[in-house]
């Protein structure tokens, strides 16, 4: 989904609030929220793609005003409710107030049936895919061309895996893009590398 979470290249945000050796946590509840998440991973309550998508489905204003650990806890609670382990009513009764959750999911999709195999140096293009559900292709590379610099071991296809759709494992490629091809005349010069699932790619110039 082209959600509010897809922030790469979006303009209007200010300076990074950087401090040297900044802490990961600012409050006890953040440590506990992180542990509740890790606990659910250990129990196998959900997979990573379900978890990421649950966060992406947060109401956009909620997403943008929530801290990282509020987003994490919202995704966690949403999945506990959607999987029938806890009800929203129970959470709100226990919390003594509103407990905002993420919005329902749109359908997922399976791996793209005809996928290319690529090797170091291949020129590839990111398909012009628009997907209602989860996708790990940041909007800023859609339709853009780059060069394969490496291949990672196969992972489950997230567009399926986040939705309980049968997901085949497929390789991801680290693809190198030039920032001036991503944002012509409007980016600092750099090479931008993105981990791109095979299903999102086609050979540049024609057949894949």
């Amino acid at each position, binding site marked *: 989904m082209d959600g509010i979470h897809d*922030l*790469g*290249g*979006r303009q209007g*945000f200010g*300076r*990074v*609030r*950087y*401090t040297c*050796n900044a802490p*990961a946590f600012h409050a006890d*509840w953040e*440590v*506990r*929220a*992180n*542990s*509740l998440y*890790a*606990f659910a*991973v250990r*129990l196998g309550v959900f997979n990573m793609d379900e978890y990421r998508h649950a966060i992406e489905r947060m109401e956009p204003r909620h997403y*943008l005003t929530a801290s*990282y*650990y*509020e987003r994490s*806890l919202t995704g*966690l*609670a949403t999945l*506990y409710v959607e999987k029938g*382990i*806890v009800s929203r009513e*129970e*959470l*709100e009764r*226990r*919390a*003594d*107030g*509103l*407990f*905002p959750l993420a919005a329902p999911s749109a359908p997922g999709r399976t791996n793209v049936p005809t996928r290319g195999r690529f090797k170091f140096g291949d020129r590839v293009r990111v398909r012009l895919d628009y997907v209602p559900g989860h996708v790990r292709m*940041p909007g*800023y590379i859609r339709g853009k061309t780059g060069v394969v610099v490496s291949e990672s071991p196969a*992972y489950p296809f997230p567009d399926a895996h986040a939705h309980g759709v049968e997901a085949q494992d497929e390789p*991801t490629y*680290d693809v190198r893009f030039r*920032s001036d091809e*991503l*944002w012509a005349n*409007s*980016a*600092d*010069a*750099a*090479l*931008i590398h*993105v*981990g791109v699932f095979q299903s999102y790619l086609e050979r540049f110039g024609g057949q894949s």
Partner: protein
Amino acid sequence: MPDQDPVIRRTTSMEQRVDAIQAALDERGMKATEAVEELNHLATEQWVPQNGARVVARAWVDAAFRERLLANGRAAVEELGLFMPKHHRHLVVLENTPTVQNVICCTLCSCTAFTIIGLPPDWYKDFEYRSRVVRESRTVLREMGLELAPEVEIRVWDTTADTRYMVLPMQPPETMGWPEEKLVGIVTRDAMIGVARL
């Protein structure tokens, strides 16, 4: 506070939300409180940048290890007794040089190799870093205190799949010959993210 949405006003605190989930799981016999205590310890005491610092220091003093690390990061860190979660199937170690600066980010969420370089700092998860570092890399690094010479090429790595990245910083010349344990002490998490040089 003007015009505040009534929904926001009635929303409970984060503490109450954390408590609610934990208590609901406990009541189902899932022993969440016990697990949370153990995991709190892991998050604050075990998943710390010192892990990555040991990897970097070893790579500086042991050329064969460095080669194995660059070839297969996951296998190499296991040699030091470190581990990565099952779903992080691949660790790519990115070597800085005098003319290359690697930088890690995650524009879609905030993924990191947290068992190796530590849980990410607050700013890494902020929208400012996520939105800007891919498009305004040199500007963002400068604002963060890293002024790179114009001939240094910036390579940004956006963690969109489950492959994880860490930067192998350059060893400062004045530390050549130091013992490995002393080198561990100079490696910072920010250098392994790539927003600082040592």
